[in-house]
């Protein structure tokens, strides 16, 4: 059983790295984006094998959602032609390739060469909770504040960048009387 688990973990790792490489090989924004999604799904599956069932499911959930939205942005904004045509996924690729390989080697060497401590106690029942405590336990206050600040930043960013607000749609008094009459879309914030 243990061998099967190791093999499955190895397959997940290979799929993750392999589809990560494919992101730069493909000449289509859609393919590159969904290759990245596949890499994240494989990462989520690896987490599942580590018995982090909640984290694994959430990684798959959030990353598929994120890639679905990202594909739209990539097609819209990447490339001179709005990425509907085949295009290269790389630029300054010699330097990028060099640094990427160097970082990978350093991280992989670290993972292999660090003298990991031996387990002394039995594995906990609630690994997800323990992992959360280990990562954030002593910084919970900071995390809570950063979370609110980030949400506020996103809202402010959207407000500042939106060309049309409810005042354009409904007029200065928000009563709809002085609103623009040529608003064909009628959607958006009111």
């Amino acid at each position, binding site marked *: 059983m243990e061998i099967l688990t190791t093999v499955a973990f190895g397959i997940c790792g290979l799929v993750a790295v392999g589809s990560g490489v494919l992101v730069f090989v493909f000449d*289509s924004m*859609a393919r590159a984006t969904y290759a990245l999604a596949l890499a994240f799904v494989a990462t989520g599956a690896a987490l599942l094998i580590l018995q982090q*069932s*909640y984290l694994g499911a959430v990684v798959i*959930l959030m990353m598929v*959602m994120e890639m679905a*939205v990202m594909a739209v942005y990539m097609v819209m904004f990447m490339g001179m032609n709005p990425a509907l045509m085949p295009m290269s996924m790389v630029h300054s690729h010699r330097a990028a390739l060099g640094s990427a390989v160097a970082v990978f080697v350093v991280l992989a060497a670290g993972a292999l060469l660090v003298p990991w401590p031996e387990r002394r106690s039995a594995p906990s029942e609630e690994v997800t909770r323990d992992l959360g405590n280990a990562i954030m336990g002593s910084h919970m206050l900071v995390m809570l504040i950063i979370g609110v600040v980030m949400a506020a930043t996103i809202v402010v960013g959207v407000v500042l960048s939106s060309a049309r607000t409810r005042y354009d749609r409904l007029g200065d008094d928000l009563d709809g009387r002085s609103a623009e009459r040529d608003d064909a*879309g009628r*959607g958006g914030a009111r």
Partner: protein
Amino acid sequence: MAEALVGSVGLVAVAIGLAWLSCAATALAGGATPVVAGLRPAREGVRLLRQRRRRTVAADLHLWRAGGWALVPSSVLMLALVPLGSRPALTSDVGVVWANALDVAVWAFVWLLGWGANSVVSLVGGYRFLALALGYELPLMFALVAPALAAQSLDLEDVARAQSDLWFVTWMPVAFLVYVIGVLGFSTRGPMSASVGREIGGGVLAELNSVDLLVVRWGRHALLGAGSALAVPLFLGGGAGPWLAPWAWVLLKAALLTVALAWTAARLPTARPHLLMQPLWTFLLPAVVVQDLLVGVILVGGR
């Protein structure tokens, strides 16, 4: 091994059955007689299978086919999470999150379906779906919080068990309503069907035919059925009910909700995505957050 095989075949059979009901109810709502409506899935299936498969110029065939053929497996996986009386086919201590992850996977599949065909109307349909998905998914996620919070567990078995006294639908009606809207959203039905709109020639379905169209249609109906089946442990008391075995109650409730949803959806007009966004986020989202708060308050107060 044999058990797993029987289980998988059973799940596919349930996916076919619920999709059949959804398709027949849609036809019934469209004015077909009961007999014609009941035979509609078979007739359509045979008609489509006799067509020669077509493809468009410079289509991204891999992404296109992957998107279309993944819809039915998603619905089967959703059904596998449903505890049929005793245990679900796929047991998980975070079944609610998996249900959510599977409905999010539909985002990717429908957009790929729209993208892969290399056709303008398909692409418009794909983008419409994502616009709608942004609208319904956030309220849907908060709706899933309510039953999990009340059961103090993300395990669908625990959620179903926690309703032995009172079905969750009775005291979290807003969450149920939002969930149902979400089901119509990820099965692209009724008011949420702009991505397959007739005015854009069928949207993501526009360039499909033959078996490829068949699996997508089956997938859309099966997703509606699977979403309804998931509502049973989430809101409708799981296998609770007199006389019949728990698994029979789960299937019966799922079938009834499937028919009700498909019939109602087919009677409602399609909403334009950009007009739906606002009520979904400025009205439904706060409403479901208040619902979650109420559930929390009732739980703390009931201790």
